[in-house]
């Protein structure tokens, strides 16, 4: 056993590579299964293309299954990494989530318990990371806001399962969750605070204008797609969502250009997960997203033998100084 622990402690994962492939699978599923096949039903005469439609649906479902495998592989890699680095709060949180999420398809545990653990882990993991000094305050703000949005949106579902007779102001809570999620999106700018980068700005403006324009032109369809995929009901003005999308795009593009793809991956995981309780895979994606945003090195490439681990503040410092 000692030899096994020693061997495990000496292991290192290219979790950035796993995360990148997982994001590709998640976004493929999001685009094919949750966007294209569900909006294609509006195409007149779709029956003519039924074979193509079925094929596309199958590809989306296979991408979904692949995303599940890769997301859980990434969670296990992160758990082993937390063990190696002796990040005990993170280790406990990840183990807790893995146990309930993997057991969920079997129906061995009450759903209210699975949901409660999911919410607690998603809220506690970034909070404990900040409190234990593993993450900086600046990094923790977006994660904590995203986590709070998730918890507020998820609460009516879990209360409905645990206490069916309890009534909550569901609509108001969903609006609050939406406001928190938008605030979280705005706060992402903290990751790349500094001199603006022209190319990233151009990308951000395009994304923002397209998002606001689509919401203004086709509010009904886009709002329903947002609700399905992100858990956002479109309560606020299209301009607000346009700015939020622009900030996300700017931060993702800038972080990639600065050699910090983990921030972009974190944003992608959060978007693929969406706020509120939908499924264990979406919750897992959201959890990975907030953890990646909160902890600077929760996913990373294998360290070179001579390299020194970066501290969170050092990484932020690099980001600010670039």
């Amino acid at each position, binding site marked *: 056993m000692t030899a096994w622990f020693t061997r495990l402690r*000496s*292991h*290192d994962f*290219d979790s950035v*590579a796993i995360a990148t492939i997982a994001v590709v699978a998640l976004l493929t599923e999001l685009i094919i299964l949750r966007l294209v*096949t*569900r909006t294609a*039903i*509006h195409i007149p005469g*779709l*029956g003519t293309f039924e074979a193509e*439609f*079925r094929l596309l*649906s199958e590809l989306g*479902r*296979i991408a*979904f*299954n*692949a995303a*599940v*495998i*890769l997301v*859980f*592989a990434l969670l*296990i*890699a992160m758990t082993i990494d937390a063990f190696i680095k002796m990040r005990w709060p993170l280790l406990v949180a990840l183990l807790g989530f893995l146990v309930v*999420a993997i057991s*969920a*398809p*079997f*129906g*061995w545990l*009450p*759903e209210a318990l*699975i*949901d409660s653990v999911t919410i607690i882990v998603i809220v506690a993991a970034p909070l404990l990371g900040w409190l234990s000094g593993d993450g900086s305050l600046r990094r923790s703000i977006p994660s904590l806001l995203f986590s709070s949005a998730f918890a507020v949106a998820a609460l009516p*579902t879990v209360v*409905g*399962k645990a206490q*069916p007779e309890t009534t909550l102001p*569901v*609509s108001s809570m969903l609006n609050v969750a939406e406001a928190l999620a938008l605030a979280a999106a705005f706060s992402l700018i903290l990751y790349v605070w500094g001199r603006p980068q022209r190319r990233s700005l151009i990308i951000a403006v395009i994304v923002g204008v397209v998002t606001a324009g689509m919401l203004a032109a086709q509010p*009904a*369809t886009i*709002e329903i797609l947002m*609700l399905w995929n992100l858990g956002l*009901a479109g309560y606020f003005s299209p301009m607000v969502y346009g700015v939020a999308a622009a900030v996300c795009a700017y931060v993702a593009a800038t972080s990639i250009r600065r*050699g910090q*793809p*983990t921030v972009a991956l974190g944003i992608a995981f959060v978007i693929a997960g969406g706020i509120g*309780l*939908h*499924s*264990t895979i979406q919750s897992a994606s959201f959890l990975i997203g907030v953890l990646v945003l909160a902890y600077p090195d929760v996913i*990373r*490439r*294998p*360290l*070179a*033998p001579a390299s020194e681990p970066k501290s969170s503040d050092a990484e932020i410092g690099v980001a600010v100084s670039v």
Partner: protein
Amino acid sequence: MTALTSTSPRTRRLIAIGLVLMLAIGFRIFDVTPAAAQSSILTSWSSTTDPGLDPNSAVWADTPATSVQLTAQNVTPPMSTGGIRAVNVRSVHYNNMLYVNLQWADTTPDMSTASVGTFADAVAMQFPSVAASSVPAICMGQADSAVNIWQWRADAQEGVSLMPDRGYVDLYQFTDDLYYPARAAGNIQSSTAAVQNLIAGGFGTLTPLNEQVIAGAGSHGALGWSVTLARPFTAPGENQPAFATGDMVDVAFAVWDGTNKDRNGQKSVSAFVRLEIAGNDFAAPPTVPASDAPFPWDTLALITIAVAVVGLVLAVFGRPSDWDGDDQPDQT
């Protein structure tokens, strides 16, 4: 493993991705869902009393309600302004019969469509025709995944008895279908049943099923409508869900407000929630009826394979930190 680690990192990664894809296809072929839904649950409790079709049965007063949020259907014309915000759903099963009671606030009963400008109140439940790992499009299903719809209409229940005072109906002495061509042709608008059993696979495909077996009745009170729908557990035909204790099926709801001129697609709709057919009375603590369901060996086998593949993926993407190879990837 030695042979594997001796290959290039690119080859190893391609092998890992190939394994993941093969496993994903395996899950699909065997229709095993490696993830679990976490959306809201509506429980159908076991009842020792037959609630019947009376919407005001005492059984419903004692059954916990689930408030299902509704939003305006505004994906396709005619779009709704979303008059009804929520429907309270209660469900029990008795003697292998599923009963669902739906209550929503609507102070103005609309029970007639006798004139051009009047529209009736109605409510509907929508099930995926075939249980699958992902639900079909909420808007009437999709080409490869149909939905089974149970729709109760106030005007159908009331018939012509609530014709407006100035309405006039000619005496029509014929009663057989020969003189009612729409009824004979199966036109759903000519049905005299309060509840219709329908199927749809996308917009414009709504069709009555041959098996018109859904029973139902509605009643309007001071607070609004209370409607009960019921159907035996056994599927009456193809593309209709069967129910059993321990089952979990997806279901969505829609409500029409005649005062708001709701009709057709102009309605308030919910997202899919899950209906759990519980094996116990709500007074008893909820338990998983493990004895009623066979152990999911196929799921266990595939998850075991998945764990093995995950281990292989981690082995491929991981290495001892003191590994002195020449394929060290670039630092991030």
